[in-house]
């Protein structure tokens, strides 16, 4: 049994077939082979599975495939930046040392991406709030906040 939904994944239209009870996280990782989205806890606490659904950051581990609708637009870490050129957020994460073990990085970048799309010049506190749902155990967050802040003030287009 499967269900087919016409999605836009990372800018490309795709008919995706999966079981309605599958988690979007598993559909991304297993069906679409987009393994940049990670699973850290499976219950919406760590944010490692964060993706953008219709412009909003969500935990893909807490959405069933059946909950998606035709025309839904999903962006994952693979969907930002070009093949060779990094997205500015990725550049700043690298430069600031905001990624250590890297497992939280894709989700963290997606949460930051959603923030900057909506609010291009967030305050320090707005940044902290926006990624409060993304746990990082390596960095102490300082360099992550710095990377997002520097990206926001660099005037690049997100």
């Amino acid at each position, binding site marked *: 049994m499967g269900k087919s939904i016409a999605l836009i994944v990372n800018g490309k239209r795709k008919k995706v077939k999966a079981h309605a009870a599958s988690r979007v996280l598993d559909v991304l990782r297993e069906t679409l082979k987009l393994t940049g989205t990670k699973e850290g806890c499976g219950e919406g606490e760590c944010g490692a599975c964060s993706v953008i659904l219709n412009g909003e950051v969500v935990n893909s581990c807490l959405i069933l495939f059946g909950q998606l609708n035709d025309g839904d637009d999903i962006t994952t870490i693979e969907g930002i930046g070009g093949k060779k050129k990094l997205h500015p957020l990725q550049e700043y994460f690298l430069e600031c040392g905001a*990624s250590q073990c890297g497992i939280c990085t894709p989700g963290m970048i997606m949460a930051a991406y959603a923030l900057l799309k909506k609010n291009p010049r967030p305050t320090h506190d707005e940044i902290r709030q926006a990624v409060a749902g993304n746990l990082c155990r390596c960095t102490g967050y300082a360099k992550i906040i710095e990377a997002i802040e520097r990206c926001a003030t660099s005037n690049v287009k997100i």
Partner: protein
Amino acid sequence: MGVVGQNAVRLDGREKVTGRALYVDDIVMPGMWHGVAVRTTIPSGKVLSVVFDPRFNWKKVVVADRHDIPGRNVVTMIEEDMPLLVHDEIRHIGEAIVLIAAPTKKMAEDARRHVEIRYEEWQPVLTIEDSKAKKRVIHGSDNVISRYKIDKGDVSAGFKDSDAIVEGVYRTGAQEQAYIEPQGIIASPGKGGGVDLVGSMQCPFYILKALERLLGMSETKLSVKQATVGGAFGGKEDYPSVLAGYASVLALKAKRPVKMIYDRNEDMNVTTKRHPSVVRHRTGVKKNGMLVAMDIGIELDAGAYTTLTPVVLSRGFLHSAGPYRCPNVRIAGAAFATNAPPNGAFRGFGAPQTLFAVEAHMDKIAEEIGMSPLELRRINCLKVGDEMATGQILKESVGALECLEKAAAASGFERKWRASLPLCKGESEGIEVRSTLPDPPLQREGTVRGIGISLFMHGGGFTGSGEAKMKGKAGIRLERDGKLTVLTGCTEMGQGAHTVLPQIVAECLGVPLSCVRVETPDTSKVPDSGPTVASRVTMVIGKVLCVCAEEMKRRLSEAAGRDHGDFRSLAGSFLKKRGPLTIIEAYEPTPGIHWDDTTYHGDAYAAYSWGCDVAEVEVDKDTFEIKVERMYMAHDVGRAVNPQMVEGQIEGGTLQALGWALMEDNRYDGGKLLNNRFQTYIIPTTMDTPFLELITVEHPFSHGPLGAKGVGELPHDGAAPAVVNAIANATGIRISEIPATPERLFEECKKKHFRSS
């Protein structure tokens, strides 16, 4: 070239920020199945029978039990007391009894639900107290996993000579590493009946050794390769050997690759935690603040098996007197077995527990004798030439006092401490210091503020003769294209080893960093550098690579018949004549280091990193919520090979320590972990993170690579005592057990009011 000392961008960074890095769960192999373990649900007893529900079609899956283990049913670590699969006696909840592999994870989990275990239940031993009292003997003859003792000088005479004797008991709880990537491994049948592994791990060679014994195979038939690791913090030091055992046994029986990935709950239920501790201090001190006698008792809860407990206890032990000079010291400590999952390695490895105790105790001493905590530390702080509890004379690289002074000055410690004192005792002898920063925002209404300090050290590398015995190897290969490859079993788990080691090599050879890469840690391709633990990679393996670089330069010069010319031209002519060159060297202990394992006397560590943390807290009078506003961290790491990565270690380690200090606590009921989820086991978020102010102190270590010492664990050592000391400064209440939750502070406050009324 000036590669060392630069903020080189991490070499594995691009893969990580694009999501292309392959962690073990991202790897799919043809024909791969998924494995799960059926586990005990009681903490102590015996398996009577294993019943497979006939309603499940068992032909669709592969089931393995202990009879399917080709070699010995043990997970080799320090001792061989831990079976891979329960043989007879159950020692904790979550021990594996039977393994199942199935084409899908869902089917494997479904199968697992159709296995029923019948037990004979025994009374479990769940606390250090019960274990010590031998309520039941569950390990050896007395439940003691290991025990040490140090005697220096004459403690009794010291106490007689003291003006005051101060006592205290300090407790710390279990802490979960909470790496964001849960544990996982894939085992596949390899050539000649062997097994190839890839997974999330710190120490591929530990797994190799464990599998040799477990599978009864020579290491030539085995290969263990590290996938990208999503955090470890000690949690992936020893436990992956267990998971590798499960996956290998299943892969051999199923004759196909078997992937085992824990979900968060299973990971938290069965993997190792930081040892809970009880540390007792009795300290004799002179009126002028000089420490005269320290009597320290240490107890750790080891959990059900030995695993790494003896070395955790040993390190805790060797840090328990703190960075202080004291002529008479007695330390006695033991780790006790309980029916809890085994505790194991976690950043700091016993030192955070004992340093918490001594640093909280120092403030208590200061209060008793009416001295500022800064002054008491200043008076007793170790300097070059001083003798430690083991008789070690510090010969060089002792930045403790500089860390203390710089952190105190930057934070305006003395002034703020006096301003916040709930009840000011004694006269000031402190120096006037000015903060480099404006004071934090005005105190909110309904809150009290305080400031606390801690001074600490962390020994780099293995304890005592460990490095001399280990003889960690590493190498450099000059490739055909003139580039260089670093060969090491040391793993990258986020800390930056695979950027820092190439930086050291590039610096030593005088080549740009872009010419250096690191071979994937794979036991079939790299030498055994020893485990990636103990803050040893930069200091010990970095040093080995320096030696390799010198040897390579020597060989190239020799072949060229000249010792001048830059590396590139020497290498070019060598390659033309002879082709690639591989140099592998082993660690040579620092000259003049002596250690006696039997008496615990001598040079415990070749070098120590030093640190001072200052915490500023705000406590809400209505809710007892504790907010750490600022942390000042002055850490002496010898030389920062990559300053940004050093900062990353200090910031991350400090926040992890703040989690332990304030909120993290694995709680058990009847041997069962209650908070086995991220919803109930909470770790700090961005909003819980204080402003972090770093202060660099560099006292180079002459035998470290370009002066570098270790930094991995040091940042976990100081935050907790600094925070409880700050809480005491704010509220007058000394919290002697962490986490310092609002509930605990509230209870202590009630007790205090009860006493005074």
